[in-house]
């Protein structure tokens, strides 16, 4: 099973460790359910012009223990709506990881990613070679392989389509 590589620009780098993703939309907006509304408020405190700069296919990069705290789903719904196709971080908090993989939203754990990329570099996540390549700079770093179930879930496009597949023998 081949999982299609992610390829896109680094639309933003969150360099804060233990980053609480709820901050992307702001806690006061966390209960908004309309995805257009969520997208409108997303990233305002990080880059007010983000909406004008991001384009479909872009990815975002995070630091160590990305998603720590009490992560909710709306922030990444908003980011996907803006065209973001995945997150590459130094490492992830498990609750966040599990939640977003189950949404079919690609997450790649790549120790060293913060020193590999700068904002707006073009990068590629190669799930088969387990490599993150910086296409702008011509450098690369190994990433941690996905578990079989996580890979299946991303390939299927999320939890529900994954569970509709026949049970794989493990």
């Amino acid at each position, binding site marked *: 099973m081949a999982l299609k590589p992610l390829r896109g620009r680094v639309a933003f780098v969150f360099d804060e460790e*233990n980053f609480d993703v709820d901050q992307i939309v702001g806690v006061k907006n966390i209960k908004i359910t309309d995805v257009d509304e969520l997208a409108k408020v997303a990233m305002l405190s990080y880059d007010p012009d983000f909406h004008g700069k991001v384009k479909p296919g872009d990815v975002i990069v995070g630091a160590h*223990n990305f998603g*720590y705290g009490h992560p909710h789903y709306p922030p990444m719904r908003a980011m996907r709506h803006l065209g973001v196709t995945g997150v590459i971080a130094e490492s992830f908090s498990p609750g966040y990881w599990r939640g977003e993989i189950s949404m079919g939203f690609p997450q790649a754990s790549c120790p060293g990613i913060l020193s590999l990329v700068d904002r707006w570099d073009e990068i590629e996540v190669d799930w088969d070679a387990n490599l993150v390549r910086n296409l702008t700079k011509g450098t690369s770093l190994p990433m941690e392989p996905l578990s079989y179930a996580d890979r299946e879930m991303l390939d299927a496009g999320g939890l*529900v389509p994954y569970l509709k597949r026949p049970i794989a023998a493990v």
Partner: protein
Amino acid sequence: MGYTITEKILARVSGKEFVKAGDEVMAKPDYVIAYDFPGYTDVYFKQMKEDFGIERVAEPDRYAIFIDHMVPAATPKEEELHIGTRTWCAENGVALYERKGIGHQVAAEVGYAVPGAFVVHFDGHISQLGTFGTLAMGIRRNLLEAFVRERISIKVPQTVRVNLRGTLQKGVMARDVFHHLVRTLGPASCRFQVLEVGGPALSQISTEGLQTITGLAMFTGAVTAIVNPDEERLAYALPRAKKKIEPVWSDPDAEYSAVHDLDLTDLEPLVVIPPTPANSRNLSEYLGIEINAGYLGSCASGRLEDLRVAAKVLQGRQVKAGFQLNVVPTSQEIMAAAGREGLLSTLVEAGAFVSSPSCDYCFGRIATMSANQRAVSTGTLNVRGRMGSPDSEIYLCNAATVAASAIEGAIADPRKYL
């Protein structure tokens, strides 16, 4: 080469003689537990039927549902959610526990904390069943897998072992031990791993205290926490157990990814400052900060030892005028016991507002704070907006500190009142 308690439990439930950390297995949970909450249970019930064509769960005894959030209901819509849950449980023959208290606590009281069992929930605080040697994990929306399949996919986690040593001092409680652990090891120290708590000082921590420590495991990055059950934990859990499973223990030569010693002798009461559970500090550095509200309750605290220490602090004293002290025992069983001991009358006479068990104080559904207000809390979490306005603040601390702060209207050291 030995095995951890986690590996032994996952070997049994995946039908294998043994498994090692890193193996990917299909495991059959002994129990699947959830509380009704919009976007979770209502969605599972709907998806089971509409996406998977499943009318009824196959083994209803493996499932348990709790109604502990939005209790009592404040809007017709909340009550409709509960009605949907009651209907589903009745149709499926699944046990429903409503108004018994916070589910993670009640699950232990009614016998789902079977030593050696594997339990899943969507909420990570179920980890507190680990007190009794139960492997209990919060797997977020993936819990759907346990509603539509017999087995769930799981990677056997590695284990970080923490040995507690030394002697706990007066006024220092299990909460402080946990927050000290986060401060010392770091908020990512157990990422994707199991936190196994042991060591000689374990004997100084009550069963209730261990429920506090294991229940907060997620803030170390752990997928759960577990304790090798001793006689005291078995004496609690075995007579209540819903089924018979042979308890298991980690082998002396089990393989751990890390082993840490945590000395408790010099530990002082701590406070976790906003806005992240990673911010453990010595209480002494924050004394005198003006506080408007106090919350003593939640699945992490609010048990008898918390109520006892608060009553001891408040005995013959008064909550400062204008300070809102909310005391919410974790379960009905605990509340009744506190009543029999006279703790509730002491707290009420001191000026506390004592409420029946509910999760609603912990996440700001009620007793909601507005901008610029500050609380001391034994709740689970201190992120922005957790108990109301994003511009309010939560200082997490032990129950004695909440009570002392209620007297002074400011963050206070409880030791002078004990």
